[in-house]
């Protein structure tokens, strides 16, 4: 008899958590503890040897955090997940499990600014070299690959350019090279796109955005597809005895979740950017309504994009599903049920008009985040990208007049009203 396959909405509510054996609590208990008692010396030894599954210390694993990990892994159609304190920590954990000093990555050049800095500045200090390429032609990734390249890296929806990655093409190029495709799926969320279905091998998220959904809690996660052949010769750290774990061979011992186990037992255990149990609980509350929130984010954003594209004080509007957008075809392929809740637009009058617009909004919040239940605006040229020269800003896709709007769940008419009155004041 085949197992019943539950739908995405059901997984948002149930995956990873069955009622607590001791109490029957229906909501997820918060195991706010650093450590877990051992049944016996032999049980302790078995846990430290990885011969049995269980909890030792919350830097390594915790039942509340584990429920979140399983839930996101289920939503992404992956085999296993490992949560981290932030999205930055999650991608770092994934990549430092793949790479060591002397290795190389090929990444999209349209990444979130924090990711760009992590790769270009911090990874360079570790001796990991990253080549950034224009992702609009996937063949650029193939051309930049070297003998020591360990992964290709891109975002499903680039931030803030809102460019769409051609996931199928990138997966083919990665697999031709025998290396994994790592995709940051933060802005799409698994409700809109599941990169593993398009060949991605590892998916990373900032849970801080749509998955958490309420702007209360930092978190990140990596999810492994379970499909990558780690014994292809390019990843001896997966097949040879581990120095960090007394000779365990992670791929042989744990099979299709061997990468996640290695990331947990070596990278997370020794570097320590762990998610707290309370944060995991808060993020999980958000995930329980992901499937209800995302359609509304998408519908409102498309309506606002259409409204702004006919607005007299607007120079241009960028939303992937807007008719005529350069990424419309890719968005229709990879994001058929919506292109998420972020759009950018240019106010007529350049940077000064952009600043006046920001200072005139009354209900939209001026802050540096996206994916909140509340609508958020920012003028990147005067905030997140202000350290860059105008030429550098343009190279990063940040035009002087550009406003980034993260559309929340308020009444659509109220968001439109605030935009219109602020635009009138900007001129």
């Amino acid at each position, binding site marked *: 008899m085949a197992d019943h396959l539950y739908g995405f909405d059901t997984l948002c509510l149930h995956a990873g958590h*069955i009622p607590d054996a001791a109490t029957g609590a229906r909501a997820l208990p918060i195991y706010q503890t650093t450590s877990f008692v051992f049944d016996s010396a032999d049980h302790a030894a078995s846990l430290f040897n990885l011969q049995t599954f269980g909890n030792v210390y919350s830097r390594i694993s915790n039942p509340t955090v584990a429920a979140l990990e399983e839930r996101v892994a289920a939503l992404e159609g992956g085999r296993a997940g490992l949560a981290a304190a932030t999205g930055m920590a999650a991608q770092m954990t994934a990549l430092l499990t793949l790479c060591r000093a002397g290795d190389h990555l090929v990444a999209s050049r349209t990444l979130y600014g924090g990711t760009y800095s992590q790769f270009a500045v911090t990874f360079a200090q570790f001796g990991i070299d990253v080549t950034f390429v224009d992702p609009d032609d996937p063949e650029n990734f193939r051309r930049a690959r070297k003998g020591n390249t360990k992964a290709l890296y891109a975002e499903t929806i680039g931030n803030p350019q809102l460019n769409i990655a051609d996931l199928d093409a990138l997966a083919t190029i990665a697999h031709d090279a025998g290396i994994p495709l790592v995709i940051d799926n933060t802005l799409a969320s698994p409700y809109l796109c599941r990169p593993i279905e398009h060949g991605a091998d590892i998916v990373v998220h900032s849970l801080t955005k749509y998955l958490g959904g309420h702007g209360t809690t930092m978190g990140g996660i990596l999810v492994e597809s379970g499909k990558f052949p780690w014994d292809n010769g390019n990843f001896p750290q997966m097949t040879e005895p581990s120095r960090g774990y007394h000779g365990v061979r992670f791929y042989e011992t744990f099979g299709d979740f061997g990468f996640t186990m290695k990331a947990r037992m070596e990278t997370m255990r020794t570097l320590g950017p762990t998610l707290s149990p309370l944060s995991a609980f808060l993020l999980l509350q958000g995930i329980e309504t992901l499937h209800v929130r995302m359609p509304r984010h998408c519908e409102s954003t498309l309506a606002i994009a259409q409204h702004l594209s006919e607005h007299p004080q607007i120079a241009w509007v960028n939303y992937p599903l807007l008719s005529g957008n350069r990424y419309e075809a890719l968005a229709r392929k990879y994001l058929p049920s919506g292109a998420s809740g972020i759009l950018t637009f240019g106010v007529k009058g350049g940077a000064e008009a952009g600043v006046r617009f920001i200072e005139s909004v009354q209900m939209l919040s001026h802050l540096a985040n996206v994916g909140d239940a509340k609508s958020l605006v920012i003028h990147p040229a005067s905030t997140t990208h202000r350290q860059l020269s105008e030429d550098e800003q343009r190279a990063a896709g940040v035009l002087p007049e550009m406003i980034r709007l993260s559309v929340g769940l308020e009444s659509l008419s109220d968001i439109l009203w605030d935009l219109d009155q602020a635009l009138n004041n900007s001129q």
Partner: protein
Amino acid sequence: MNITDDIAGLRRILTRYRSIAVVGISANWYRPSYFAAKYMLDHGYQIFPVNPNYSEVLGRKCYPTIAAIPESVDIVDCFRKPAEMVPLAHEAVAKGAKVLWMQLGIRNDEAAMIASAAGLDVVMNHCVKIEHARILGGLNWAGVNTGVISSRRA
């Protein structure tokens, strides 16, 4: 052919049967076969190590063959190469085992046919330890997508 691959079927096998012959067990504590046998021993199963190279593993007498085990065996759990599965299937049938279990990475359709035709349940390409932890608890603590959805107490 009777290949068991679903949660209900694996749960039935792992709850109904209690004795396991671990064929090809290693005496090295960091090898997967030792991991699996120790885990199942810790979870209340009777373990019969089978490997002609050892006299004792996990503090238990180690037998050279399945036939040499003096007691009845429910599950024959195989940590050997796929090419060795056909003779092991015959041995499992001769022993009166209920399940031929081929470990992670091991598939052999001919062996499966032999065991299945004799009325045995067959599991292929799964780890007995991982499936036990997936379905009966523990693997969820490792962040693995177990596929188990239930509104009943764990």
